[in-house]
């Protein structure tokens, strides 16, 4: 039982913190309020930030050196993300490519695919989006119906994907498509598909936040070349499930770090309103601090489990439910305690300067739905941890 970082890990943290201090112009919550920005220019800010991170060697740190990695441990990746969230750095536009597709290519792709796609994914010159979910296949992903049919050596894609984050700015999409209608899991294959071609239509989806960060993609005979099939035909489900597992670890400490920022902003706001002495306020704040600290403990445990060479078991579903449900409690509490000022648009001169509470409140509704809803995570816990039977 030992949850301390080593001196090397602490040195790495200092290095990252100093680098962010020298390279991050302003926190994201301030960046979005800069006059003149629109959705497109904000994507360019993110792309530029990704280039900087890449140049400094902070992207894909856990990958093998030939693909730009340094064989970093899960702990170092977690420290990097913790520091990035602590500093409120922009999210890189290729985060889905980097966290899902690149590991798929490294472990299951061809040498030619790795050479062609990984460098441009890293430097941000090509942006990737993820084509897994469909209107009729969200939490029940294996029921997906988008199909890929042979056309000579190549394939033609027909169907629809949805919730493609950064889709409106993407150049490529990695797609799970059905190549055998009769085999639920073994009939799914993994394709890399260029977006800018006939037969692909990307439409933005406006979210409850007012932004259009998601898209839906319609495929009507779009071309997927044979050389852009990842792994073998019918291996798509297996590849997708292994890469979804790689999401674990790196995020172990990032949410508590982000919450620390929100909590500090909440405390500052309440302090200014003279509300910190109120007993109801103190109890609610205390609870939020306690829960965030418990979440950090869970994260440290995930890292310790990974360091011992074991795959996290119940921990990743617990982590997912915990951070996403906590975000809703935190934002609900902030709205309740800070009052109407917390509902102001961030660009209003009267808005609190340290957090975009109105946006964050709305955004917190997404976390318990995406990446496996809280209900799906509970199913996973019931099935894999408690071994309860399904009907």
């Amino acid at each position: 039982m030992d949850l301390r970082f080593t001196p090397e890990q602490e040195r790495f943290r200092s290095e990252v913190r100093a680098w962010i201090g020298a390279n991050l112009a302003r926190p994201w919550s301030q960046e979005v309020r800069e006059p003149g920005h629109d959705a497109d220019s904000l994507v360019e800010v993110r792309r530029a930030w990704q280039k900087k991170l890449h140049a400094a060697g902070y992207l894909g740190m856990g990958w093998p050196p030939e693909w730009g990695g340094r064989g970093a441990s899960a702990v170092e990746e977690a420290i990097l993300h913790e520091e990035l969230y602590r500093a409120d750095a922009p999210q890189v536009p290729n985060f889905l490519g980097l966290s899902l597709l690149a590991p798929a290519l490294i472990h299951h792709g061809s040498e030619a695919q790795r050479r062609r796609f990984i460098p441009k994914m890293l430097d941000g010159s090509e942006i990737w989006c993820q084509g897994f979910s469909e209107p009729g296949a969200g939490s029940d992903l294996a029921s997906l119906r988008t199909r890929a049919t042979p056309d000579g050596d190549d394939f033609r894609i027909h169907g629809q994907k949805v919730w493609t984050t950064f889709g409106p700015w993407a150049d490529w999409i990695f797609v799970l498509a059905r190549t055998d209608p009769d085999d639920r899991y073994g009939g799914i294959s993994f394709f890399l598909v260029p977006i800018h071609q006939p037969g692909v239509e990307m439409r933005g989806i406006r979210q409850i936040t007012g932004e259009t960060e998601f898209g839906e993609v319609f495929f009507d005979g779009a071309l997927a070349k044979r050389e852009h099939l990842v792994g073998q035909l019918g291996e798509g489900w297996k590849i997708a499930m292994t890469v979804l597992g790689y999401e674990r670890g790196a995020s172990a400490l990032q949410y508590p770090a982000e919450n620390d920022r929100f909590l500090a902003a909440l405390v500052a706001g309440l302090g200014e309103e003279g509300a910190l002495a109120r007993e109801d306020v103190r109890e609610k704040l205390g609870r939020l601090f306690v829960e965030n600290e418990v979440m950090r403990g869970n994260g440290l445990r995930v890292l310790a489990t990974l360091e011992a060479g074991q795959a996290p078991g119940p921990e990743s579903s617990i982590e997912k439910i915990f951070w996403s449900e906590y975000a809703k409690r935190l934002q609900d509490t902030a709205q309740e305690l800070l009052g109407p000022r917390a509902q102001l648009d961030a660009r209003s001169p009267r808005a609190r300067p340290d957090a975009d509470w109105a946006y964050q409140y709305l955004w917190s509704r997404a976390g318990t739905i995406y990446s496996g809803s809280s209900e799906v995570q509970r199913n996973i816990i019931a099935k894999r941890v408690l071994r309860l039977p399904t009907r």
Partner: protein
Amino acid sequence: MQFTLDEDRALLQRSTRELLEKEGALETSRRVMEETPEGFSRSLHAQLGELGYLGVLLPEREGGLGAIAFAVVLHEMGRVALPGPFLEVALAVRLLAGCDGDAAKRWRAKTAAGEALVVIARSESLASADPAAVEATCRGGRLRGTKHFVPFGAQADALLIETREGIALVERAAAGWDATPLPTLDPAQRFAEIRLDGPPTLVAEGERAADLLAENERLGALGAAALLLGLMERSLETAVGYLQERQAFGAPIASFQALQHRAADCVLQTESTRSAVYRAAAAEEQGGADPALLAAVAKAWAGPAARLVCGEAIQLHGGVGFTWEYDPHLYLKRAKTLELFYGSTRSQLERVLRAKLAS
């Protein structure tokens, strides 16, 4: 980083579980709780003394085993909802080890060996057991005051009393005291109201006393959180076992999603408590993080978590969960009492908030 127990402590966990399965099984404990006025097994307590458990919090050179071992033992005791003053005595032994004088030394040895029972008496309120300014005084060779909710106070051979002047040791043989039992909803815990008017020995004063009491609060919170972890872990196991056994509508009720999701929430609560308890124990033993903050976090989390999980265990059992015969109620009762002691949830939230606002 490592989240598993090392070999020594894994061995301690196994041997403690074996001992408790043999000597502290719930069937036996039920008999002890219902049939003896003391509410706990003197022979098991003596055995815990002989085996060195009661001195778990002593410095290592005096037989102590460290905070992680302390958590392991209490975690196991929680699993069997063990009645009796183990946590109370381990804390008293630790406090005595920090006190001056021959009396403290003598009582420490006897208490750690399981030959005498010494507990700490602090609270003077019926409405809260949290640390607060005390009225008890220790002047002119007499200790005067009334303490509430003194754990096993009617059975103790000596008491460590928080007074305005410091911590005083009062021996029953020399001073005597009036003890009024305060039976609560938890049959595993025997509280008493103690009225004192007799000769004390001051064993710690001023800053020293304050430090010892702060340490006592920190370790008490950690120990109570570990007990709560054991209570909820076993409650969940029992409930899941019942779900798999019980049939309704032609299927095991474990296959119903409504029940599965309740059980999954209990997993989240229990596993998060495990992380919090052992993180706090490791910080206490190894440093690297603030042990006072983390003990408060563990206790503030574990209280409501255990209340939820032990309550859900009753719900998941349905009607039989409400019977005296089935075990879930024993766990809920222990959890409910523990939540209010060793720093109530409310007081621990405030403690965490203060620490966070100061940093």
